[in-house]
């Protein structure tokens, strides 16, 4: 039973970072925010995108913990999130988590098939 639990175990956080990083615009947003905070409107203008489109991208990054936003008056501004990782270091951190998850799975697999030829 414990092995079965291990079997379905994966890291949702890793997958969210993957999803967040898989888009070049979102990587661009992280790089831009690495240089300083920006409003959603600024970002939309910079990436030649509608406000709604930019809000969606920022939301994906926020869900992955890579970005936080704050509304001051009528302006919503974005900054690098608690994980404070820019695209490249976010990828390295994600890779490391994935590698660990893979080795955990390998461990489970070898235990499960113990004694097999």
């Amino acid at each position, binding site marked *: 039973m414990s092995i079965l639990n291990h079997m379905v175990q994966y890291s949702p956080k890793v997958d969210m970072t993957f999803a967040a990083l898989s888009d070049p615009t979102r990587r661009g947003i992280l790089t831009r925010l690495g240089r300083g905070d920006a409003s959603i409107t600024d970002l939309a203008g910079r990436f030649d995108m509608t406000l709604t489109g930019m809000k969606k991208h920022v939301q994906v990054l926020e869900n992955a913990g890579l970005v936080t936003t704050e509304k001051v008056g009528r302006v919503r501004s974005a900054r690098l999130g608690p994980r404070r990782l820019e695209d490249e270091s976010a990828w390295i951190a994600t890779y490391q988590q994935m590698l660990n998850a893979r080795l955990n799975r390998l461990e489970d697999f*070898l235990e499960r098939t113990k004694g097999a030829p």
Partner: protein
Amino acid sequence: MTNSLKESTATSTVTTPSDREIHIERIFNAPRDRVWRAFTDPKLVAQWWGRGNKLVIERMEVERGGHWRFVEHSPDGVHGFEGRYREVTPPERLVHTFEWDGMPGYVIVETATFEDLGDGRTKVVNNSLFYTSEERDGFLSSGMEQGLNQSYAALDRLLMELD
């Protein structure tokens, strides 16, 4: 079984010699031949590499220069990974490159060495070295640029001759 899991976990170490390198040492409770096969037999790889997600092994040519391409179907989407084998020395050493479709051009060189501990256990030493944009830029500004200029000069000469 629970004990052996704990034991294996207790002997796992992770270090980052530089921020471009990840070094993991881990002891598995299995003989070296089985661990080697778990890394090199597609039927076995399919059972663990995907972290519990469905894994499609599109290509896996375990030989020097051979390609590999795995596609993982996670709840958040489909992610492709691929690379080339650089060194295949059974059952001791496996070196390959690793790239994720989401970050094209960010190549990682993964080196796994398998050490027989003589008691039915195997130590796997995994080293991952990142070739990042900075390093690529450094590469560009050094020898590669010169090589590129030489190539362009040769191309110029060829085009002149064609005139």
